[in-house]
């Protein structure tokens, strides 16, 4: 694909622990096109965050290590790039926002100091322009009293405001790709919606591609165009948001969609996918989802399906002709 800005090809990231190698991300492939919002969905522990840290080159190492595959940014493989190269890319080309806005800002510095930090690192800019740029950024993320905010400390801001500041910091050098790792999980629902709207707006205005990592399919439906569903370190389904919501092919995706509470249903209990995510590496044979799958077939326990399909890919025998 020519217009892909970031391509992850067969990425495998493992953690080397006392119990041996644990494959947290096991051969995932996806690409992000310029200016699109891609959703990366999955339960806790399925490798979403490890994927994003692998892309940023921020894996805690040891024990984490990329053991295979490629991460192509504008065609350049950055999976094993030197730290000095990664430092130039981080913030400037690929930026990231984190789950916990309450702790992602340094308590001893003002908003202004932290907001201009990335710009000072990556771009030469006279001090006067720097302040103007900071004010613009705060206005861009919809914060009032921008000029006064610059002189305030993080503890004087609410969670929603801090997440806006984090987004402003991430956007300060006009990155091409923004990785948002559960940006709304720690916020309450009304603020969540505002932050998502803001990210969609920034995406339209600045054309920055966003990888939105979340466990909330509702969030994905709201802002993403394409979705990658991950399960136990692997991609199980991938395609357009509409296709996936209307015709989920993988039973796991179907389960995720069914577990979204429905406002109008009269049921007492919510749908759940029985069991929990298997420990990485604990299932040696067959489909990783087989133990929890309602449609499990004999074949699923012996062989592992490939990710097949054209625009709408899935990793399941159910929809194969030979099944």
């Amino acid at each position, binding site marked *: 694909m020519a217009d892909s800005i970031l391509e992850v090809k067969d990425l495998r990231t493992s953690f080397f622990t006392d119990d041996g190698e644990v494959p947290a991300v096991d051969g995932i492939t996806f690409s992000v096109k310029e200016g699109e919002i891609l959703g990366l969905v999955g339960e806790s522990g399925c490798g979403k965050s490890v994927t994003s840290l692998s892309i*940023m080159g*921020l894996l805690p190492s040891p024990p984490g290590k990329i053991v295979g595959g490629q991460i192509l940014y504008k065609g350049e493989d950055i999976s094993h790039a030197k730290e000095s190269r*990664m*430092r*130039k*890319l*981080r*913030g*400037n080309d690929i*930026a*990231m926002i*984190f789950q*916990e806005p309450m*702790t*992602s*800002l*340094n*308590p*001893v*510095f*003002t908003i202004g100091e932290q907001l201009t*930090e*990335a710009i000072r*690192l*990556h771009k030469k800019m006279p001090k006067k322009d720097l302040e103007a740029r900071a004010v613009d950024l705060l206005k861009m993320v*919809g*914060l*009032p*009293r921008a000029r*006064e905010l610059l*002189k*305030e*400390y993080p*503890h*004087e*801001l*609410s969670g*929603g*405001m801090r997440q806006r500041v*984090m987004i402003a*910091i*991430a956007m300060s*050098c006009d990155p091409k790709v923004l990785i948002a790792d559960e940006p709304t999980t720690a916020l309450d629902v*009304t*603020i969540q919606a*505002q932050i998502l709207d803001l990210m969609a707006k920034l995406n339209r205005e600045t054309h920055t591609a966003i990888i939105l990592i979340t466990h909330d399919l509702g969030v994905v439906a709201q802002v993403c165009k394409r979705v990658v569903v991950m399960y136990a370190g692997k991609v199980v389904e991938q395609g357009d948001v509409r296709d996936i919501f209307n015709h989920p092919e993988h039973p796991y995706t179907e389960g995720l969609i069914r577990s979204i509470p429905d406002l109008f249903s009269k049921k007492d209990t919510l749908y759940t996918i029985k069991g929990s995510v298997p420990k990485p590496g604990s299932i040696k044979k067959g489909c990783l989802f087989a133990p929890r799958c309602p449609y499990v077939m004999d074949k699923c326990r012996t062989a592992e399906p490939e990710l097949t399909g054209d625009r709408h890919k899935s990793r399941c025998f159910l929809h194969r002709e030979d099944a």
Partner: protein
Amino acid sequence: MPQSEQNTAVQPAEEEKGPFVRNLLEFWKSFRKNKPAIVGAVIVLFFILMAAFAGFIAPQGINDQNINIRLQPPSASHWLGTDDFGRDILSRIIYGSRLSLRVGFFAVIGSIIVGTLLGVAAGYFGKFIDTVISRFFDILLAFPSILLSIAIVAVLGPSLNNALVAIAIVNVPVFGRLVRARVLTVKEEEYIMAARSIGMGNTRIIFNHILPNSFAPIIVQGTLNIATAILDAAGLGFLGMGAQPPQPEWGTMLSSSRQYITNAPWTVLFPGLAIILVVVGFNLMGDGLRDALDPRMKN
């Protein structure tokens, strides 16, 4: 804008001031509530002023001897009496404050600088570097501090400046371990990851993010350690390993007058009181600083 994001409006009076001034004001507000700390600060300030203006306020020179008035009790002309050479004890104590404060401040500053650098290196880089530095600290801490300072002075030769160096070395692990522990906590904070995610390197992360977040405990420990440094210097002086007579160092004064303790007790009482007072002052102030700067006490 939703309601919740507008509630943090600051009062107009505070808005004009810079963030630093606002922080200072906030610190002062919580510090002044602590009465013992204020007393400590006043005592410390008193000794600092005394040291600064010693030349103006001391009634006599430090070495003005008058054998006719030796070992005189306190009187109108010699408020704190005279010693065995007929020197005015008050004047010697006033000048002595210069020596004691100098040792206190510079020994602590020295240990803070060295201890912080070693502690940051150990805490941030970990592994082998941490092992080497931490074991080095353990070795220093294994000796009783006064014994170690005596050993260092014995090598360097007895003088006030060498006592200062010895006290600084002995206190390095105190700050080193403090900073290391602080760095270990701070480096796991999410804002350090956030700093890395915008492309910041190790040096900048250490100096821009980790050190500023470690200052509060360093300041508190530093203030408390000035007291122990002064005490150690006096102890070394008393043992003849620190300041040498006729320098009016308080410990040295105690030492040279100790034989007169029964018939001229003022010769040891007042230098001793000076030591107690300055140590108590720094301790009270240090405790107050800890209460005011401890982030857990805020909010």
